[in-house]
Protein backbone atom coordinates (compact mmCIF):
# COMPACT_ATOMS: atom_id res chain seq x y z
CA UNK A 1 0.00 0.00 0.00
CA UNK A 2 2.66 2.44 0.86
CA UNK A 3 4.64 1.31 -2.18
CA UNK A 4 1.56 1.89 -4.31
CA UNK A 5 1.17 5.48 -3.06
CA UNK A 6 4.87 6.09 -3.65
CA UNK A 7 4.53 4.85 -7.21
CA UNK A 8 1.49 7.01 -7.72
CA UNK A 9 3.22 10.08 -6.34
CA UNK A 10 6.28 9.30 -8.52
CA UNK A 11 4.02 9.03 -11.61
CA UNK A 12 2.36 12.30 -10.69
CA UNK A 13 5.78 13.94 -10.30
CA UNK A 14 6.90 12.55 -13.70
CA UNK A 15 3.69 13.79 -15.32
CA UNK A 16 4.21 17.20 -13.87
CA UNK A 17 7.77 17.32 -15.13
CA UNK A 18 7.09 16.17 -18.68
CA UNK A 19 3.42 16.44 -19.44
CA UNK A 20 3.69 15.67 -23.15
CA UNK A 21 5.16 12.21 -22.82
CA UNK A 22 2.62 9.54 -23.83
CA UNK A 23 2.61 7.63 -20.57
CA UNK A 24 1.99 10.65 -18.48
CA UNK A 25 -1.59 11.27 -19.42
CA UNK A 26 -3.53 12.89 -16.62
CA UNK A 27 -6.45 10.55 -17.18
CA UNK A 28 -4.34 7.60 -15.98
CA UNK A 29 -3.75 9.17 -12.63
CA UNK A 30 -7.16 8.85 -11.29
CA UNK A 31 -7.27 10.16 -7.79
CA UNK A 32 -4.90 13.05 -7.74
CA UNK A 33 -5.53 16.23 -9.72
CA UNK A 34 -2.32 17.57 -11.21
CA UNK A 35 -2.02 21.15 -12.40
CA UNK A 36 -1.49 20.93 -16.11
CA UNK A 37 0.32 24.04 -17.35
CA UNK A 38 -0.05 23.35 -21.05
CA UNK A 39 -3.83 23.16 -21.32
CA UNK A 40 -5.00 26.39 -19.64
CA UNK A 41 -8.34 28.11 -20.41
CA UNK A 42 -7.49 31.44 -22.12
CA UNK A 43 -10.28 34.00 -21.91
CA UNK A 44 -10.55 36.61 -24.76
CA UNK A 45 -14.00 37.96 -23.95
CA UNK A 46 -16.70 36.31 -26.00
CA UNK A 47 -16.58 35.49 -29.70
CA UNK A 48 -14.16 33.51 -31.72
CA UNK A 49 -10.86 35.34 -32.24
CA UNK A 50 -9.70 35.12 -35.84
CA UNK A 51 -6.36 35.94 -37.38
CA UNK A 52 -7.57 37.68 -40.54
CA UNK A 53 -5.28 37.14 -43.45
CA UNK A 54 -5.65 39.99 -46.00
CA UNK A 55 -3.31 41.65 -48.49
CA UNK A 56 -1.36 44.64 -47.28
CA UNK A 57 -3.01 48.06 -47.26
CA UNK A 58 0.15 49.74 -46.00
CA UNK A 59 1.00 51.28 -49.35
CA UNK A 60 -2.54 52.56 -49.96
CA UNK A 61 -2.83 54.10 -46.54
CA UNK A 62 0.66 55.62 -46.89
CA UNK A 63 -0.30 57.17 -50.21
CA UNK A 64 -3.48 58.68 -48.78
CA UNK A 65 -1.60 59.93 -45.75
CA UNK A 66 1.05 61.61 -47.90
CA UNK A 67 -1.61 63.01 -50.26
CA UNK A 68 -3.45 64.53 -47.33
CA UNK A 69 -0.21 65.95 -45.93
CA UNK A 70 0.98 67.60 -49.14
CA UNK A 71 -2.45 68.99 -50.00
CA UNK A 72 -2.95 70.47 -46.56
CA UNK A 73 0.59 71.86 -46.43
CA UNK A 74 -0.41 74.71 -48.76
CA UNK A 75 -4.16 74.24 -48.53
CA UNK A 76 -4.50 75.31 -44.92
CA UNK A 77 -2.47 78.54 -45.23
CA UNK A 78 -4.38 79.43 -48.41
CA UNK A 79 -7.70 78.76 -46.69
CA UNK A 80 -6.68 80.90 -43.71
CA UNK A 81 -5.51 83.75 -45.96
CA UNK A 82 -8.62 83.72 -48.14
CA UNK A 83 -10.97 83.51 -45.14
CA UNK A 84 -9.08 86.31 -43.41
CA UNK A 85 -9.26 88.55 -46.48
CA UNK A 86 -12.96 87.89 -46.96
CA UNK A 87 -13.80 88.51 -43.31
CA UNK A 88 -11.52 91.44 -42.54
CA UNK A 89 -11.36 93.29 -45.84
CA UNK A 90 -14.36 92.16 -47.81
CA UNK A 91 -15.37 92.91 -51.36
CA UNK A 92 -15.46 96.39 -52.82
CA UNK A 93 -18.56 98.45 -53.40
CA UNK A 94 -19.36 99.97 -56.76
CA UNK A 95 -19.46 103.77 -56.69
CA UNK A 96 -19.77 106.47 -59.31
CA UNK A 97 -16.42 107.67 -60.57
CA UNK A 98 -15.75 111.12 -59.12
CA UNK A 99 -15.57 113.85 -61.73
CA UNK A 100 -11.89 114.72 -61.82
CA UNK A 101 -10.49 111.39 -60.61
CA UNK A 102 -8.81 108.86 -62.89
CA UNK A 103 -8.92 105.48 -61.09
CA UNK A 104 -5.83 103.26 -61.16
CA UNK A 105 -6.22 100.18 -63.26
CA UNK A 106 -6.56 97.86 -60.27
CA UNK A 107 -9.44 99.84 -58.85
CA UNK A 108 -11.76 98.41 -61.47
CA UNK A 109 -11.90 94.98 -59.82
CA UNK A 110 -14.17 93.86 -56.99
CA UNK A 111 -12.40 91.21 -54.93
CA UNK A 112 -9.39 92.38 -52.84
CA UNK A 113 -7.21 89.44 -53.90
CA UNK A 114 -7.93 90.14 -57.58
CA UNK A 115 -7.02 93.76 -56.97
CA UNK A 116 -3.78 92.74 -55.28
CA UNK A 117 -2.85 90.42 -58.15
CA UNK A 118 -3.69 93.10 -60.71
CA UNK A 119 -1.67 95.67 -58.82
CA UNK A 120 1.44 93.61 -58.07
CA UNK A 121 1.66 90.82 -60.61
CA UNK A 122 -0.05 92.01 -63.77
CA UNK A 123 0.59 94.89 -66.12
CA UNK A 124 -2.06 97.51 -66.70
CA UNK A 125 -4.41 96.62 -69.57
CA UNK A 126 -3.64 100.00 -71.11
CA UNK A 127 0.05 99.08 -71.23
CA UNK A 128 -0.75 95.71 -72.82
CA UNK A 129 -2.96 97.40 -75.38
CA UNK A 130 -0.31 99.97 -76.26
CA UNK A 131 2.38 97.27 -76.48
CA UNK A 132 0.21 95.28 -78.87
CA UNK A 133 -0.45 98.34 -81.01
CA UNK A 134 3.28 99.13 -81.07
CA UNK A 135 4.04 95.57 -82.21
CA UNK A 136 1.38 95.84 -84.91
CA UNK A 137 2.81 99.18 -86.07
CA UNK A 138 6.35 97.74 -86.25
CA UNK A 139 5.17 94.75 -88.24
CA UNK A 140 3.16 96.99 -90.57
CA UNK A 141 6.19 99.16 -91.24
CA UNK A 142 8.33 96.09 -91.92
CA UNK A 143 5.72 94.73 -94.33
CA UNK A 144 5.44 98.10 -96.11
CA UNK A 145 9.21 98.33 -96.46
CA UNK A 146 9.40 94.85 -97.92
CA UNK A 147 6.68 95.68 -100.44
CA UNK A 148 8.42 98.89 -101.50
CA UNK A 149 11.70 97.04 -101.84
CA UNK A 150 10.09 94.55 -104.17
CA UNK A 151 8.53 97.37 -106.19
CA UNK A 152 11.89 99.18 -106.45
CA UNK A 153 13.61 95.98 -107.58
CA UNK A 154 11.01 95.54 -110.25
CA UNK A 155 11.36 99.09 -111.51
CA UNK A 156 15.13 99.12 -111.47
CA UNK A 157 15.40 95.80 -113.20
CA UNK A 158 12.93 96.90 -115.83
CA UNK A 159 14.17 100.39 -116.52
CA UNK A 160 17.79 99.79 -115.77
CA UNK A 161 18.49 103.40 -114.85
CA UNK A 162 18.98 102.89 -111.13
CA UNK A 163 21.91 101.91 -108.97
CA UNK A 164 20.77 98.26 -108.66
CA UNK A 165 21.29 95.57 -111.27
CA UNK A 166 24.41 97.17 -112.61
CA UNK A 167 26.75 95.06 -114.60
CA UNK A 168 30.06 96.94 -114.66
CA UNK A 169 31.41 97.55 -118.17
CA UNK A 170 34.94 96.24 -118.74
CA UNK A 171 37.93 98.52 -119.08
CA UNK A 172 38.55 98.76 -122.85
CA UNK A 173 42.31 98.95 -122.34
CA UNK A 174 42.44 95.36 -121.24
CA UNK A 175 41.00 93.99 -124.48
CA UNK A 176 43.62 92.20 -126.49
CA UNK A 177 43.09 93.20 -130.09
CA UNK A 178 46.10 91.25 -131.33
CA UNK A 179 44.20 88.26 -132.76
CA UNK A 180 42.18 90.60 -134.94
CA UNK A 181 44.69 93.38 -135.55
CA UNK A 182 45.75 92.18 -138.98
CA UNK A 183 43.74 90.26 -141.63
CA UNK A 184 44.77 86.72 -142.60
CA UNK A 185 46.76 86.18 -139.44
Amino acid at each position, binding site marked *: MVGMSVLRSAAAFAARLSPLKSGNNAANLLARTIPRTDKVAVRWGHGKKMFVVKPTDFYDRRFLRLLQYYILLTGIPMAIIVTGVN*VFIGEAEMVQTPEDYEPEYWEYYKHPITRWIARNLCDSPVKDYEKMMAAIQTEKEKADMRLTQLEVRRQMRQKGDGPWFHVDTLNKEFIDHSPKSSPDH
Partner: protein
Amino acid sequence: MPADYDKGAYPEPPRQTPAVDKQTALPNPALILSKLFYYSVDLPVTTFRDAVDSIRANNKIVYYHQKFRRVPNLTECQEGDYVCYYEAEMQWKRDYKVDQEIVKVVQERLRACHQREGSSYVQNCAKEIEQFAEVSKNFQARYGDLGAYASARKCLMKQKARMMGTEGV
Protein backbone atom coordinates in the same frame (compact mmCIF):
# COMPACT_ATOMS: atom_id res chain seq x y z
CA MET B 1 -26.54 94.34 -45.75
CA PRO B 2 -25.99 94.76 -49.48
CA ALA B 3 -28.32 96.93 -51.55
CA ASP B 4 -31.67 95.52 -52.59
CA TYR B 5 -32.51 94.66 -56.16
CA ASP B 6 -34.19 97.01 -58.62
CA LYS B 7 -37.85 97.02 -57.63
CA GLY B 8 -38.90 98.66 -60.88
CA ALA B 9 -37.51 95.87 -63.06
CA TYR B 10 -38.74 93.07 -60.81
CA PRO B 11 -42.01 94.34 -59.36
CA GLU B 12 -43.47 92.49 -56.44
CA PRO B 13 -47.06 91.36 -56.85
CA PRO B 14 -49.60 92.93 -54.45
CA ARG B 15 -49.76 91.10 -51.15
CA GLN B 16 -52.77 88.86 -50.84
CA THR B 17 -52.36 87.95 -47.16
CA PRO B 18 -55.79 88.22 -45.57
CA ALA B 19 -56.30 90.01 -42.27
CA VAL B 20 -55.85 87.76 -39.25
CA ASP B 21 -59.24 86.45 -38.12
CA LYS B 22 -58.61 83.89 -35.41
CA GLN B 23 -61.64 81.80 -34.64
CA THR B 24 -60.04 79.04 -32.61
CA ALA B 25 -57.98 79.03 -29.45
CA LEU B 26 -55.50 76.61 -30.98
CA PRO B 27 -52.07 77.96 -31.92
CA ASN B 28 -51.39 78.66 -35.58
CA PRO B 29 -48.81 76.16 -36.89
CA ALA B 30 -47.75 78.44 -39.71
CA LEU B 31 -46.93 81.12 -37.17
CA ILE B 32 -45.01 78.64 -35.04
CA LEU B 33 -43.00 77.42 -38.01
CA SER B 34 -42.20 80.93 -39.18
CA LYS B 35 -41.01 81.89 -35.72
CA LEU B 36 -38.93 78.71 -35.56
CA PHE B 37 -37.34 79.51 -38.90
CA TYR B 38 -36.67 83.06 -37.76
CA TYR B 39 -34.92 82.08 -34.56
CA SER B 40 -32.99 79.12 -35.93
CA VAL B 41 -31.89 80.48 -39.32
CA ASP B 42 -32.66 84.14 -39.90
CA LEU B 43 -31.40 85.59 -36.64
CA PRO B 44 -28.03 83.77 -36.49
CA VAL B 45 -27.31 84.56 -40.14
CA THR B 46 -28.19 88.23 -39.73
CA THR B 47 -26.12 88.62 -36.58
CA PHE B 48 -23.15 86.93 -38.24
CA ARG B 49 -23.44 89.22 -41.24
CA ASP B 50 -23.68 92.31 -39.02
CA ALA B 51 -20.64 91.18 -37.04
CA VAL B 52 -18.59 90.66 -40.17
CA ASP B 53 -19.78 94.01 -41.57
CA SER B 54 -18.69 95.79 -38.42
CA ILE B 55 -15.24 94.20 -38.75
CA ARG B 56 -15.08 95.22 -42.38
CA ALA B 57 -16.28 98.75 -41.76
CA ASN B 58 -12.74 100.01 -41.14
CA ASN B 59 -11.29 98.64 -44.38
CA LYS B 60 -13.88 99.67 -46.92
CA ILE B 61 -12.69 99.63 -50.52
CA VAL B 62 -14.51 100.80 -53.63
CA TYR B 63 -14.38 99.96 -57.29
CA TYR B 64 -15.45 101.87 -60.37
CA HIS B 65 -17.08 101.13 -63.66
CA GLN B 66 -14.63 101.45 -66.54
CA LYS B 67 -15.88 103.46 -69.49
CA PHE B 68 -14.03 103.02 -72.77
CA ARG B 69 -13.77 105.72 -75.39
CA ARG B 70 -15.40 104.98 -78.73
CA VAL B 71 -12.92 104.43 -81.57
CA PRO B 72 -13.60 104.22 -85.32
CA ASN B 73 -15.36 101.05 -86.47
CA LEU B 74 -13.95 98.52 -88.86
CA THR B 75 -15.84 100.25 -91.67
CA GLU B 76 -14.20 103.59 -90.88
CA CYS B 77 -10.65 102.26 -91.00
CA GLN B 78 -8.35 102.79 -93.94
CA GLU B 79 -7.33 99.68 -95.80
CA GLY B 80 -4.06 98.32 -94.44
CA ASP B 81 -4.23 100.36 -91.21
CA TYR B 82 -3.71 97.41 -88.92
CA VAL B 83 -3.58 99.47 -85.76
CA CYS B 84 -7.05 100.81 -86.55
CA TYR B 85 -8.18 97.25 -87.23
CA TYR B 86 -6.89 96.17 -83.82
CA GLU B 87 -8.69 98.95 -81.96
CA ALA B 88 -11.92 98.29 -83.85
CA GLU B 89 -11.59 94.59 -83.07
CA MET B 90 -11.16 95.26 -79.34
CA GLN B 91 -14.16 97.57 -79.34
CA TRP B 92 -16.24 94.96 -81.12
CA LYS B 93 -15.24 92.33 -78.56
CA ARG B 94 -16.33 94.62 -75.73
CA ASP B 95 -19.64 95.32 -77.46
CA TYR B 96 -20.17 91.59 -78.00
CA LYS B 97 -19.74 90.98 -74.27
CA VAL B 98 -22.13 93.81 -73.45
CA ASP B 99 -24.75 92.42 -75.82
CA GLN B 100 -24.44 88.98 -74.23
CA GLU B 101 -25.06 90.51 -70.82
CA ILE B 102 -28.05 92.45 -72.15
CA VAL B 103 -29.63 89.22 -73.38
CA LYS B 104 -28.95 87.60 -70.01
CA VAL B 105 -30.64 90.46 -68.15
CA VAL B 106 -33.73 90.34 -70.34
CA GLN B 107 -33.89 86.57 -69.92
CA GLU B 108 -33.60 86.95 -66.15
CA ARG B 109 -36.52 89.39 -66.16
CA LEU B 110 -38.64 86.96 -68.13
CA ARG B 111 -37.86 84.15 -65.71
CA ALA B 112 -38.66 86.35 -62.72
CA CYS B 113 -41.97 87.33 -64.28
CA HIS B 114 -42.79 83.68 -64.97
CA GLN B 115 -41.99 82.79 -61.37
CA ARG B 116 -44.12 85.63 -60.05
CA GLU B 117 -47.18 85.04 -62.18
CA GLY B 118 -47.29 81.26 -61.92
CA SER B 119 -49.72 79.65 -64.31
CA SER B 120 -51.09 82.88 -65.78
CA TYR B 121 -47.73 84.02 -67.13
CA VAL B 122 -48.76 83.89 -70.78
CA GLN B 123 -51.07 86.90 -70.40
CA ASN B 124 -49.44 88.81 -67.58
CA CYS B 125 -45.87 88.63 -68.85
CA ALA B 126 -46.68 89.48 -72.47
CA LYS B 127 -44.40 92.55 -72.45
CA GLU B 128 -41.42 90.62 -71.09
CA ILE B 129 -42.01 87.77 -73.52
CA GLU B 130 -42.18 90.13 -76.46
CA GLN B 131 -39.08 92.03 -75.31
CA PHE B 132 -37.10 88.81 -74.89
CA ALA B 133 -38.21 87.50 -78.27
CA GLU B 134 -37.12 90.70 -79.98
CA VAL B 135 -33.79 90.93 -78.17
CA SER B 136 -32.86 87.32 -78.82
CA LYS B 137 -33.93 87.58 -82.47
CA ASN B 138 -31.70 90.62 -82.97
CA PHE B 139 -28.80 88.99 -81.14
CA GLN B 140 -29.14 85.88 -83.28
CA ALA B 141 -29.30 87.97 -86.44
CA ARG B 142 -26.19 89.93 -85.56
CA TYR B 143 -23.93 87.44 -83.75
CA GLY B 144 -25.73 84.22 -84.50
CA ASP B 145 -23.50 81.57 -86.05
CA LEU B 146 -20.17 83.32 -85.81
CA GLY B 147 -18.80 80.56 -83.57
CA ALA B 148 -15.99 80.55 -81.01
CA TYR B 149 -13.47 82.41 -83.20
CA ALA B 150 -15.85 85.29 -83.88
CA SER B 151 -14.23 88.53 -84.93
CA ALA B 152 -15.26 91.95 -86.11
CA ARG B 153 -14.46 91.04 -89.72
CA LYS B 154 -16.66 87.94 -89.64
CA CYS B 155 -19.49 89.94 -88.07
CA LEU B 156 -19.12 92.56 -90.79
CA MET B 157 -19.23 89.89 -93.49
CA LYS B 158 -22.33 88.43 -91.86
CA GLN B 159 -23.91 91.89 -91.91
CA LYS B 160 -23.04 92.24 -95.57
CA ALA B 161 -24.66 88.88 -96.32
CA ARG B 162 -27.71 89.95 -94.38
CA MET B 163 -27.97 93.19 -96.34
CA MET B 164 -27.51 91.40 -99.63
CA GLY B 165 -30.15 88.90 -98.67
CA THR B 166 -27.78 85.99 -99.21
CA GLU B 167 -27.74 84.91 -95.56
CA GLY B 168 -29.01 81.45 -94.89
CA VAL B 169 -28.62 80.45 -98.52
